[in-house]
């Protein structure tokens, strides 16, 4: 299963990259939302099965990124990383088609459980 992680926070990016790879996922993690979009658009590469994205990032908002992701790959599930006080934003994100969210500071075990939910059927245990 291939996962895209995008967050402007290097701690999150590094931690997720390491933990998810260890769990056997193929991970592409980046600090740069534009790079994330380029990677998504690259048709030569195998498509992503899941996207984990921060909802607030400087220079491109999570919402803008979400809209862009939905345009490029409308069926890929998206889990958002957000702060608790961003209820409005989370609601908007759901309207735009996000599937799920986790709250900062992230609990990795919870995130993994949520990821399992979006695994393609044949991989689920």
């Amino acid at each position, binding site marked *: 299963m291939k996962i895209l992680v995008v967050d*402007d*926070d*290097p*701690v999150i990016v*590094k*931690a997720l990259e*390491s*933990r998810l790879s*260890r769990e056997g996922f193929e991970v592409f993690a980046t600090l740069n939302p534009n790079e994330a979009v380029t990677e998504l658009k690259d048709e030569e590469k195998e498509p992503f099965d899941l996207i984990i994205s921060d909802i*607030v990032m*400087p220079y491109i908002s999570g919402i803008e990124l979400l809209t862009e992701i939905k345009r490029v790959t409308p069926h890929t599930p998206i889990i958002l990383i957000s*702060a608790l006080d961003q209820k409005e934003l989370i609601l908007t994100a759901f309207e735009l088609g996000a599937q799920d969210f986790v709250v*900062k*500071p992230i*609990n*990795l075990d919870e995130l993994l459980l949520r990821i399992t939910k979006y695994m393609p*059927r044949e991989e689920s245990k």
Partner: protein
Amino acid sequence: MEIDEKDKFDVALLDLSLTDSRGLKTLEKFLSKEGYLGCPTIVLTGYEDEKTGFEALQKGAVDYLNKGKINSYLLVKSILYACIRKDNQALLKAKEVAENTAEMKQRFLASMSHELRTPLNVVIGTASLLEQSEHTQQQQKYIDALKITSQSLLGLINNILDVSKIESGKIELENKPFELTKVLEDLMQLYSFKSKDKKLGLYKKFDLSLPNYVIGDSLRLNQVLINLLDNAMKFTESGGEVELKAKVIDETEDTSTICFQITDSGIGIAPEKLESIFDSFVQADESTTRLYGGTGLGLSISQHLVGLFGGQLSVESEYGKGATFGFTIDLIRDKETVFIPIEEKVELSSVRANDDYTKILLVEDHDFNQMIAIQLLKNWSNKIEVDIAHNGKEGVEKVTKNYYDLVLMDIAMPEMDGLTATKMIRTTLPDNKKNIPIIAMTAHALKTEMEKCFAAGMNDFISKPIDQSLLFKKINKVLNLAEEEKKGGIPKPAEPSAINELSGLKVDLVYFDHLACGDPDLKMTLIKSVLDDLPIELEKIKVAYSEENVEEFYKVAHKLKSTFGYVGLKESPAINKVLVRPTEREEKFYFEFVDFEHFKVISKEVLSQINDIYFKENKSI
């Protein structure tokens, strides 16, 4: 399948054993709005077919049973769970509806009582001012009428709140000393105007042995008597008579048993109606409502209140000849309280060493309320200087710029409310300003409102309409306390708040253990990335601050907030004060008050603590 018997089944079992898509389509149809049975559906799937079961669950089935594994226990268990689930959902829904209704009612009552109190505050205040201006004896009587009626109206507004409290069984009597004879005489005075208007005879018969001072709930007693007197007046024609009787029928060492009776010569009540007149919303006759008005709540509330006093409200009546309502209750005689005659004035305590004026800032948006408060204060003492701010924002600005001894703060105001303004004063102003005494003046008399005021950092609370002697007492109290603190205070070091906050600032990197999942190298890598990244972000926020770029400032702040969160400082007030983004409306204003120098000191400390831990742990690996 035709489904015309909705809501008649508790559980549906649907066989999807054909592993084609038709089975699932049937389920979809089954669960769609048009075909919905209104009951949980369990599907049966074919041998070896778990996939269809999963898909059915996603489509809304409550459970699935594999035909290959099914037995009677599994089936019963599945059905039982489905039933419980159904009941549970119905319960949850009912609970939600009930909670919503109760909440709406509470909100409605709170806002109603606020809306009604605001204009009434003006009436009561104006009457007080009128009384203090020059006037004739005749005019004094009018003023008295104004004062008493507006006070009783205030009591009635409080009654509106009572109805809901009674319904939820939340009403409780107070036990406070009061002057029984004064309560009764005041009532007679109040009704003497009404009886003259209606050309009724009003009589009193008070037992000479009535105790003067008793302990109990004067407001509730008053409320019952007012309800009964109102009724008596309402149902008696001109030329008739109304009498209030109070008689001591028994005495023990501590208590007096007193019988109150209100007798009228009005229309009376038909015998068959006597029983039901104490029910809510019931009057003797439907035509009564048309003729005499009223809600039919008064007697019901009164009976309930008398019950709380330990008595019972009774009625005797001969149809066409009048009625007598009465109740008997025990009141504790008060031997200790010394009542301060009203004439005795509360003096502005001369707490200040020099003979300076006491400077008060009144933060209030309502013109009339401003006028009343200013006049009250000026009449009280000529040593008071009052300054006005029209909203919370202006209030904070004035406190920042000028010196005041005290702030009187309204709560509901445009631009910025009193709670926010108080929080700002308490958190963003320098030490010599932030502890200024603040008294809330609010039309919300609810306890929750009072708690909010204290939580915001106010020193005291007074509800409108303002009881002037209470206000004066509270002003004296907070001024005295403030003065004592000043005198008793130990001289503080130059930057006390920064130093105190630094001593409580302790970086905790336990979250990194969680992130690294037991991998020490990864933990170090993660901490290192904070050490690399944090100074860059701090530089960014510094630039944004110096360029007064509010948007950029809070953008960087958002990220810093989560970084400080990782290192165990999520709850640090010193950090949150700067980094938590206020609402859009207030952010420019908050930005002006950001103590960035202080923040720099704090972040430097945080960085150095992380650095220390990093090098210590790195060595030990």
